């Protein structure tokens, strides 16, 4: 393990100094990405491996990170997707109590650097005031101006392409094979899917087929599925506009659940608009209200874009859930068809489990078809 002094430079020129920890054989010396923060106090491994953090530098607001180590069961995908992790107080012996690998072991294996000793609260205040920023981490306390030029020129690209599977993967449901409960076949469009979305379906006994983001409607139809899930994923939903007709066609044909990016894509496909939030919603304490009955619960969120509420007026979608923090759209359903989507993460991991019921709702919808 190597440690060097380092600086995070934002594209507005603000700098934050700290230490960079990286594996011995990790040769990369600078890292670029969109700098975002998450307010969840636990769940660092789940966040790092969430493909939605692709091309982002993740700053955690809770200052002490790494205490309970890492565990292969907690990863939300096969690798870490964040470009770097920024923390205040990195704990090295994490996992000792449970004989688990430490966070640094994990990060080193995943070839991502951990930047520590940053005044993360000051960084968060900066991001909150000036909005999400691009940033570059360099291994020096006195960075040259070229680093800043570099970050100004850099732009995120091929977000979904980078994280989606390249071919279909079939998975059987868990549980009692002899049970009389119906078993469905669900296709999950992988825009950077968190494995717990698929787990949530599998543990309810259903077959899941993870499909690449660009799978054609014919290929999907050939699968003879009972329901469709549009997954979460990184970046701007409008990047996928050429595929929107396919998603719309399939959603009109099969009971459909959209989650996070999948929710935005669904809304776009049905004619709504999306926009970029100033600094996004990332955390495990986001309150959401169910509009028809006033029920309130806490959700896990991770998104930088949102659906324009007004733009839904001209579509057949209606708002079902809203954020109690900023009243942005948190969920929609189709007026006539079995289509629902939510902006937050019913699969949690990390975060509260209050909205897990959406999977049952969705499966009921599938069952009615």
């Amino acid at each position, binding site marked *: 393990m190597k440690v060097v002094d380092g600086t995070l430079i934002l594209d507005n020129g603000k700098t934050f100094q700290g230490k960079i920890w990286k594996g011995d054989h990790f040769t990369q010396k600078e890292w670029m990405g969109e700098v975002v*923060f998450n*307010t*969840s*106090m*636990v*769940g660092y491994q*789940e966040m790092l491996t969430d493909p939605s953090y692709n091309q982002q530098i993740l700053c955690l*607001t*809770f*200052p*002490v990170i790494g*205490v*309970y180590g890492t*565990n292969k069961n*907690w990863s939300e995908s096969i690798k870490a997707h964040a470009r770097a992790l920024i923390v*205040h*107080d990195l*704990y090295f*012996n*994490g996992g*000792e*109590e*449970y004989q688990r690998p430490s966070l640094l072991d994990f990060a080193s294996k995943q070839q991502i650097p951990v930047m520590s000793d940053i*005044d*993360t*609260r*000051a960084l*968060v*205040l900066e991001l*909150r005031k000036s909005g999400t920023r691009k940033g570059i981490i360099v291994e020096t306390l006195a960075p040259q101006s070229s680093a800043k030029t570099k970050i100004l020129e850099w732009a995120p690209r091929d977000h979904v392409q980078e994280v989606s599977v390249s071919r279909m993967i079939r998975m059987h449901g868990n549980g009692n094979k002899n049970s009389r409960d119906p078993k469905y076949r669900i296709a999950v469009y992988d825009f950077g899917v968190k494995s717990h979305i698929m787990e949530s379906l599998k543990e309810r006994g259903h077959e899941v087929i993870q499909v690449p983001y660009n799978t054609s409607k014919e290929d999907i139809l050939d699968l003879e599925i009972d329901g469709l899930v549009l997954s979460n994923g990184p970046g701007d939903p409008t990047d996928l506009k050429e595929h929107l007709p396919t998603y719309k066609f399939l959603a009109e044909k099969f009971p459909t659940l959209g989650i996070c990016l999948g929710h935005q894509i669904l809304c776009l496909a049905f004619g709504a608009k999306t926009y970029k939030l100033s600094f996004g919603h990332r*955390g*495990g*304490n*986001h*309150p959401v*209200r169910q509009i028809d009955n*006033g*029920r*309130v*619960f*806490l959700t896990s969120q991770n998104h930088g874009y949102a659906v324009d509420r007004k733009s839904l007026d001209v579509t057949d979608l209606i708002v079902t859930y809203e954020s*109690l*923090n900023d009243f942005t759209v948190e969920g929609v359903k189709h007026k006539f068809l079995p289509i629902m989507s939510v902006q937050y993460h019913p699969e*949690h*991991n*990390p*975060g*509260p*489990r*209050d909205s897990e019921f959406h999977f049952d709702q969705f499966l009921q919808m599938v069952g009615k078809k």
Partner: protein
Amino acid sequence: MNALVNRKWKKILVIGPGPIVIAQAAEFDYSASQCLQILKEAGIKSVIINSNPATIMTDSVMADTIYMEPLTTSFLKKIVLKERPDAVLCSFGGQTALNLGKKLWDEGFWQKYQIEILGSSIETIKAAEDRMLFRDEMQRRGHPVPHSRIITHMSQVDSAIQELGLPLIIRPAYTLGGSGGGLASTVEEVKSIMERGLRLSAVNQCLLEQSIAGLKEIEFEVICDHKGNALAVCGLENLDPVGVHTGDSVVVAPIMTLSDYEVQSLRSMSLQIVRDLKIVGACNVQLAHNSKTKQSYVIEVNPRVSRSSALASKATGYPIAKVAAWVCLGKTLDEIINPITQKTCAAFEPSLDYVVMKFPRFPFDKFIEAEKKLGPQMKATGEVMSLERNFLASFLKGIRSLEQGFDHLWCAAIEAETDDGLWDHILRPTDMRWFAVAELLRRDQKSLELIAVKSMIAPYFLRELQRMVQLEVDLKSNGINKELLLEVKKRGFADSAIARFTNEAKEKISQKRIDWNIRPVIKTVDSCAAEFPAVTPYYYLSYDKESDVNLERVNKNRKRVVVLGSGPIRIGQGIEFDYSSVHALNTCRALGHETIMINNNPETCSTDFSFSDRLYFVPLDEEDVLEVLRLEKPDGVIVQLGGQTPLNLASKLERAGFHIYGTTAESIENSENRKFFEVVLTELSIRRPKAMALDRRINFATEAMDLSYPLMVRPSFVLGGRSMAIVYDQQELEEYFNSKVYFSKEAPLLLDEYIKGKEIEVDVLSDGKDIFIPGILEHIERAGVHSGDSMGMYPPKLPSTVQQEIIHIALKLCKKLNIRGLLNIQFTWKKNQLYILEVNPRASRTVPFMAKMTKIPIAEWATKLMLGEMSVSDLKRSHGLSASEFLAPTPEWVSLKLPVFSFEKLSMVDSALGPEMKSTGEVVGRGVNFPQAMAKGLMAAGVKWSYIGSVLFTIADRFKPEIIPLVKRFHALGHDLMATAGTAAFIEKETGIKVTVVPKVGEADYHLEHYLRDARIDVVINALAGGRNANSDGHLLRKLSIEMKLPCFTSLDTAEAFLEVLEHQHFSIFES
């Protein structure tokens, strides 16, 4: 917003918590005050009943109608019938209020008068609190609980032990803070704890439960509205595994050693439990978690605001009591405005970007003979909270905040222990266990694994302490350099501790730190980790990089005033000082000043951020307070209202260049300096008991002493030995010398002639020229009983000449000492002579009581005097008093202040009253005459008595002549007289009245203990010579009286006052 509140409630009754006792402290003043604020906001008339005068909730501005009456069902009913409220809130006044609410429900009282119970229903409360119902409900709902059996009779114990196996935990139902519970590893232990537990339980019921000691103890503070919307405001992790009461545990938030998977499992379980029980309002859920097997258990729930909810509120910034009050009024969480952001709603869970910890404050410095082992029965009297950006720094700040003379997790007495001694502190946990852990690590850092295995403390916490030990090694071996200094400051080391490890002067370290610009920055507690703009003016200091706030003055003319608080609640410095501090804040704000509070007690009103313009949660030590002052650059600091804590800082702050409002630091020092003060008294020809200071033992064979017995003796420095005592002769004095008493030139032993006269106390308001005394408080017990433990009466029965002399002396003293603000003076009056016993240049603990009884806002006036904005004559005029009046008009009622003790929580502590304070709280009793006031005060204090019965006397020879009049009066009332042999013989000889002799232990098979246990005695009068011999009969007698809940009087003055009550309520008959 108010439209959402159910309009049918026009008037709501709030039941308060009563006096401060262990496990029910200032947190309920905070929560009940918050609740009253919400009722006001909702436009509903409020009625509060609470017997504790030293509270903000009983202030005239808090509620529409205030009753400072005993919290008993009969008084409650009387008030309800008079007020006829539409509804009642009983979940804001602790267990006391909940129990009262339940009792009246069981009697059908609320139902009969159609008074709605707001919040959780009584069925819900019972299901949550009755151990049997709770266990059944949890099992039915599939929530895991440890195996257990309900015991209602001793005969069930044997089979239960066989079924469950040892060790076992005994939990009595319906007691405060686990009173009477315990962990038992042998059959005998089970039986002895069970016997006591059954007696203490209000329903004679105990739970015998498989021990889950050693598992992680996790708590969630949950709020649930009537629609079943539930959220967890805060998860708390106890550093001490299950086995130590959570009130005695060191606690950290957020939960640190569990993964997201585990945290969410436990959170979901907590929310489901609260929904299953149909709780409406706040609820604390306690869970045990086995990190190896991942098995969790539900320990218990508290279906009300609690100590933990107060802590969680201060730890996160989320005001649980306020939100719970709205929820009880029928709002849903999304309808309640979040007071922190003022934009979003209360339906969110705070995210912390700091590590916050709570440390218990134990009374073992006062009760040196108390059993210091910690278990399921809470022993702490108070707590402190600390915030920092890493665990170790938060931990060390907490240790400093406790004000127990520790600036670091290091203690000389622990350092002197053997390894076995240290392990003993850890494995049978004591108040010093964390010091012992650190010491073991200092001796061998490799012992960490063994400590983790044996103590079940999570390795993470131990690693952080190991980090501390390693930093100490670095300091010792390398001395100090900039990098290391920055690191140890980040990790919470105090300058004074760094100085000790590097062998440098503390001033030098502080100076180096300033030279190298290693200074703390201000960070905000905003409940959302900076995600939203917050309006909370609530801060802590951290050695991080950037400050959150800009303290530039917008309005240069606006005064900036800092008020220093009183820190943790302890015996001798309680909620009274928080009351005065809050009044200072309110006064300064009303005057338009920028008002800043510094304190570290999470239970209190003063640390409610809505009471000040800015609140700092830091240790009240020189270093931290100075850092805040250097950042704030205030116009001045108020040190007179927070008790001794801020007063002790006065001269240090002044030396650092900060202005002290009111009496100067020099005057404060002078009035506390014995020698100087003696000179002043001589000069003013004011009498005081003859005194001397000894820096060594007297050799009585060769030296004579210029004082006459009896003497009051006290060391100026207490070191685990005995402290204050009254000695009656040379032999007793020599015995005192022989006990572990420490004296030297720097800390001499102080001896005063003890004058057993009437004790009188005044709080004087002074501007240095003129004074005003709101009222003279006359003590019931003569001097010798600590003023905090005596009963006080107002108005006094003193002749007016004495009152005039008191005014005269007070005026002379205030002028001489140039007092601006408050001066507390204690007198003793004997044979028409007044002697000064003590002065304190600050608010005393009687301020709230006197303020309420005299209707003079003492703390407010004191603040105005300190700030120099008004003179005494201005204040008098503002209150319609003439310049020549020195006392407030005499009220028509007699008011008594009675002390309340927590002896049943502290085994081995002697309840005999003496010169050391032992009470934890106070109540007020008001009546048309003395006996009525006294009767109400006793009821409020929880004393229960029968009007006729038997009274037991055990009296030391010295006091025997004094009891004869009392004996005769008890006899005339029809009481049976009982006494131990010596006392009996004396009584019979003097009065001829027949007395039943009660044998002492060892004198007969059926002895004193059996008499008490078999309830053959109703009142105990026990005046002994003193002495801290825990095995004496007197000690046993007092212990048993507490267990049997009998009135036990160790001062004959109190006994006489009690007798007056009996005589008032019952006829005496005389043989002529």
